[in-house]
């Protein structure tokens, strides 16, 4: 592993100042380290400087005015998953967290770090292979290589990787805001706007600038989220990244008309994918399996599957339908 400097500042401002003033070519914030340290061992990340941000005090879950939640970026995944308010008001977020990694990793991993974890595309994590994300201009090895588990939506010729976070998918459905401390002060980034589609700059996972530090996640009050769930499909029963996942929330009027619906997909794109077309199709109409299927089809109309992952289109469709039907209490 390449030698690096390690700093432990007192607060967020200090962390941002330390990182931006360091002059280090490759500086990284260190949260739980469950992804970054692996990547350093593999030589994928070679930072000169690590700034520890796990002990800046952003470690509380607080109720906000109006019934939302503010989650400190350094809260551990396990702690947030079992938070009673989160489990009542946003069950899909708790379920998403618990579907990720293993208990040991969830005990260490932070919420901010979870959102900023890197893709598990094998071409990205092996420095002997071509990857535009790791080494811009080297080419995408996955495009003509192994890509069963890659993107079907929003990908580019430069990159077909998917974002691995389960939490980010649920937060995208909620419409959470990411609070960022940067060189120019604090700003709010609404999900899914944090993560980028790859375009011709896949080396940039997010819209964050160098030095930007996530300090908290804000979950707005959302009545629909009380009836929500997260469904993750994977190649084994636990400790595996999503092949496809769906976070969905559904709120219906007494006559069965859909008042609010939220749908986000994981495992299908470079960013968590908010299924806005499907949501639009559904709002204001009855909650039936037929309409769920039509909405899923409308969303997946945009899909551009690759040679080895065409199965993700029917898989995503099936999941959208079955999760919504379950929430609506109708037969899929």
């Amino acid at each position: 592993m390449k030698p690096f400097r390690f700093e432990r500042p007192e607060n967020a401002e200090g962390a941002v100042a330390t990182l931006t003033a360091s002059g280090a070519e490759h500086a990284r914030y260190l949260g739980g380290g469950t992804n970054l340290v692996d990547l350093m061992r593999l030589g994928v990340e070679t930072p000169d400087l690590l700034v520890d941000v796990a002990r800046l005090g952003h470690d509380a879950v607080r109720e906000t005015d109006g019934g939302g939640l503010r989650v400190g970026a350094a809260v551990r995944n396990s702690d947030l998953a079992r938070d009673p308010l989160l489990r009542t008001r946003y069950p899909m977020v708790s379920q998403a967290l618990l579907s990720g990694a293993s208990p040991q990793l969830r005990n260490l991993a932070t919420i901010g770090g979870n959102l900023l974890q890197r893709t598990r595309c094998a071409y990205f994590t092996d420095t002997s292979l071509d990857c535009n994300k790791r080494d811009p201009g080297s080419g995408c090895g996955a495009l003509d290589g192994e890509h069963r588990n890659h993107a079907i939506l929003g990908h580019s010729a430069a990159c077909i990787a998917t974002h691995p976070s389960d939490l980010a998918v649920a937060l995208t459905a909620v419409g959470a805001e990411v609070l960022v401390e940067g060189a120019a002060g604090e700003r709010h980034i609404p999900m899914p706007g944090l993560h980028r589609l790859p375009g011709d700059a896949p080396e940039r996972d997010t819209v964050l600038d160098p030095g930007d530090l996530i300090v908290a996640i804000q979950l707005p009050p959302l009545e629909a989220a009380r009836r929500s769930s997260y469904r993750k499909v994977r190649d084994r029963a636990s400790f595996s990244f999503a092949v496809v996942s769906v976070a969905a929330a559904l709120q219906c009027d007494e006559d069965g008309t859909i008042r609010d619906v939220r749908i986000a997909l994981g495992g299908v794109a470079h960013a968590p994918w908010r299924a806005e077309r499907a949501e639009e199709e559904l709002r204001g109409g009855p909650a039936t399996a037929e309409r769920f299927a039509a909405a899923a089809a409308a969303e997946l109309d945009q899909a551009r599957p690759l040679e080895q992952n065409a199965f993700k289109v029917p898989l995503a469709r099936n999941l959208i339908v079955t999760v919504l039907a379950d929430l609506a209490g109708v037969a899929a």
Partner: protein
Amino acid sequence: MTPVSAATIDGLRRIEGRDKVTGAARYAYEQQIEGVATAVAVTSTIAKGRIHGFDAGETLAHPRVLEVLTYENAPRVAEDADSEPELAVLQTSAVAYHGQVVALVIAETLEAAREGARLLAVEYREQTPDVELSDSHPGLYKPDKVNAGFPTDEGTGDPDRALEKADLVVDAVYSTPNDHNQPMEPHATVATWSDDGHLTLYDSTQGAPMAANSVSKILGVDSGRVRIISHHVGGGFGSKGTPRPNVILAALAAQALGRPVKLALTRQQLFTMVGYRTPTIQRVRLGANADGTLTALVHEAFEQSSTIKEFAEQTTTCSRVMYASPNRRTAHRLVRLDVPTPSWKRAPGEAPGMFALESAIDELAVAAGMDPIALRIANEPDVEPETGRRFSSRNLVACLREGARQFGWDERDPTPGVRREGRFLVGSGVAASTYPARRQPSSATARANDDGTYLVRIGAADIGTGARTALTRIAATALDVDPSRVVVEIGDSALPFAMLAGGSMGTASWGSAVVKACRALVEQGGGEVEVDTKEEVAADADLAKHGFGAQFAQVRVDIDSGETRVDRMLGVFAVGKVIEPRLARSQLIGGMVMGLGMALMEEAILDPRTGATVNHDFAGYHVPVNADVTDVEATWIEEEDAELNPMGSKGIGEIGITGAPAAIANAVFHATGRRVRDLPIRLDRLL
């Protein structure tokens, strides 16, 4: 034959269990050696070609890096090392596969060695590799023989004609992918040369004495000057059966530096440097009369090896043992590709072979409208089909019947694809298991101590199986004393020469020597004796000796996602006398769980252009986790067989994996009506 209930299984607890869970048990890499340097292997990033040059400038400029060894400066190995090309490391500029060792960086610390490895630039002259197995590859050939010395092809009668005339025909192609051993403890070695030219290796091996012999040959050192110590081994599954490159690398590095060197392979390197199970493509053709009686059995396997070594897995030999058929042909064809060299993985041959054969038998049962257990019983042979030899014991039918009873098979509706539970389709399947029961000569000493205890010494290996505990029981029984009065020393090539832990032969081979030594000691009335079993083994009756079993699986398949989960597995085995019930159950279950992994998830993927193993870590190469293994039970029927060895035992290390994938695949068919013939049964194959 009495069935054994899982609830009553008892026996000794693992002798070294406490040491292992408290960390007191030292594995190879954990040995504390004064002045030891740390090595890290650098592997090729091309699959075919030559090394054009190294730029080690930055590596050697690292203040804590000591040396970079390559083919340009590494000590030479013995000339006759050509017989083990995988062990002739750092001797040539040629690259035969992606992930082959090309350099070794040695440093004061692991961190410095890894950084030095990262900084080492290797330039190649690359050629286009050929890494894809197919059943029409122009390079396919018939090897002289297949592993364990079996004939490449054999058969009887005229199976083609019999197939033409058969009432029922199954003709299907099955495939299995590259499966990896991946023991928890990686391959690791600490090497020390003494001033007078003696080499001591702390190594993770399945057989220290045989490994020491191999190493002495490769290095051209007198065999009395190589000692391998291997007290604890964190799994091997065949991949530590013979020395792997890490052993020679560590020895060469210690020689070059004149100080001790330690080396552990990384998880990624285990995917290319220590062997794996060849992928197979298998065509099985069964012909049968309308009543299910087999008239033809054809089993042909296509498989691969590397360009530097012929490794011909004995994939179809199970079809020479399992069922009676007047017409039979079994065959193997091999192609040499620019891929890592395959090697032994738990039940080599039987594991992939029984997936294909037992899937085809299930297909025949469906075609015949017969219960698959009844079909198997109808085709039970009187003698071993290939050789006509009598079976020393064969209780497959008893296992099938007892398993059916315990599993509740009789209540099963055979109609596929009709049992719905919520969003799942549910089904159950059965398959047979088999594995040879053999033994090899070994030697042992036994000594009576003045305090009433006994010391038994043998160069055996406990790779996590519980061998140390089982041998303690065997010795205590032969001495007619309580096991607490017996100490068994194993895991050292300085101990009496013994068979390795492989081929399910360990306990049978070692136990024979231990019993002989202990009986001789009793007869002698004390003191110390040394024995070997060459004569007994040479005089073994020429019979067909195999363990058998029946495996049952119940699965659920999600209709939305195609995800398959195994709700229940039951294995009932006939494996002679079971020596340590608690440990035996654990080992059989371990094999079945590995079979579950083979059935549903294990699959190493090579990039067809570069030959790189793409998913070379545990995030990409899935093995079963606890959540996948909900209810697995293994039991056995008591089997008396006096023609095996003094214990009356058959090996149990491998039989558990055989048949398990077919039982699961057959259950998936029963659940869904879809026959998946390509492993693993991924969700996209059922969607």
